């Protein structure tokens, strides 16, 4: 009875740490990727647009990919949480056409997005831009995960303090305290 309690505690704390590590692992690549990728992509793709525009006829596949990329970031105004790329609605199709035409006319991805922001506001972006108050959305999960990790370490240390000093070979010691 006494032994099972101590095992329970250890298992519980291990599970908590495991879950946290899992969460960290899942968050770590996703979080920096969002702000980092955005400028990188637009820069690289802008060069592509300008490049394909010079050989005007060849740009179909590239233009399609660019359109897809921009359209995936724009919210469908008549749907719930869908991008205009994923939405089958008529307005989304028309907006995709506008995106494609503007890209073909030589606008950069950011300029096309800015056009839609100027019409619909920042709401039109599925992913909020990382500046000002919006930074909170990106920073808060990191802080929460780090804070949680510190908290778990602190708690586990407190739980395991007694057996550590008494010696690991006597697991029943802490339960008799």
């Amino acid at each position, binding site marked *: 009875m006494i032994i099972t309690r101590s095992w329970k505690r250890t298992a519980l704390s291990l599970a908590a740490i495991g879950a946290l590590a899992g969460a960290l692992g899942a968050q770590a690549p996703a979080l920096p990727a969002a702000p980092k990728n955005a400028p990188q992509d637009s820069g690289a793709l802008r060069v592509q647009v300008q490049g394909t525009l010079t050989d005007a006829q060849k740009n179909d596949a590239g233009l399609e990919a660019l359109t897809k990329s921009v359209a995936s970031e724009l919210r469908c105004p*008549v749907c719930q949480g869908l991008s205009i790329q994923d939405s089958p609605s008529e307005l989304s199709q*028309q*907006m995709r056409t506008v995106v494609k035409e503007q890209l073909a006319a030589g606008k950069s991805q950011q300029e096309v997005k800015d056009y839609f922001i100027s*019409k619909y*506001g920042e709401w039109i972006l599925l992913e909020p831009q990382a500046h000002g108050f919006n930074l909170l959305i990106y920073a808060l999960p990191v802080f929460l995960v780090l804070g949680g990790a510190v908290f778990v370490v602190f708690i586990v240390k407190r739980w395991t303090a007694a057996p550590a000093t008494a010696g690991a070979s006597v697991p029943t010691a802490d339960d008799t305290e």
Partner: protein
Amino acid sequence: MNWRRASIAAAAAAPIIGLFAWGLTRDPNNIPSPLPGRAAPSFALAVFSPGQGGLMRPAGDTVRLADLKGKVVVLNFWASWCLACRDEHAALSQVAATYEGQPVQFLGVLYNDVPDKGRAWIAEMGGQSYPSVDDPGARVAIDYGLYGVPETFFLDGNGRVAFKNTGPVTPGMVRLKVDSLMAVAALQASAAQPAPAPRAPAKDRAGGPEKTGGAK
């Protein structure tokens, strides 16, 4: 000890509860448009329904925003498949008729619909006093940041968006907005005529419509 824990838990929960409470005070359908206060997107659209009496514009005529300078423009996006458009149609049509001969242009813009169906709808609704234009590909609708229909934009005499209304309009609201924009235009016109050199007060008045728009 228990009290301490309870107060820590309460302190941690308070901001989250506060956030949710604040969220309840907001209408998720009410997305503010960035357009009011800015220059209205230009358009050139063909009339498919001419309107009646003095407000008539021949079908096939192209209506350009640039040609409407100096007029208050009421731009009403609608569709024959739109149920809420039925609610506002009679009111809008009647109010528009009362402004005949004044520097006001009411204009219906057909959104994602076929002109034939639009014409049939107008006939079914007992006519429309003002002309309606077709917007192929919803280009102008997207330019105006349209979410759905009906949406009505009120443009001032300087070609700027003064107000936007989402959903059906009421006669009182249309009159109030059109009258206030006409009053501002008249003030600007009277200020511009006697004064040989443009001065600062004219600039102040130009900011008028946006201020009233923000208060609405």
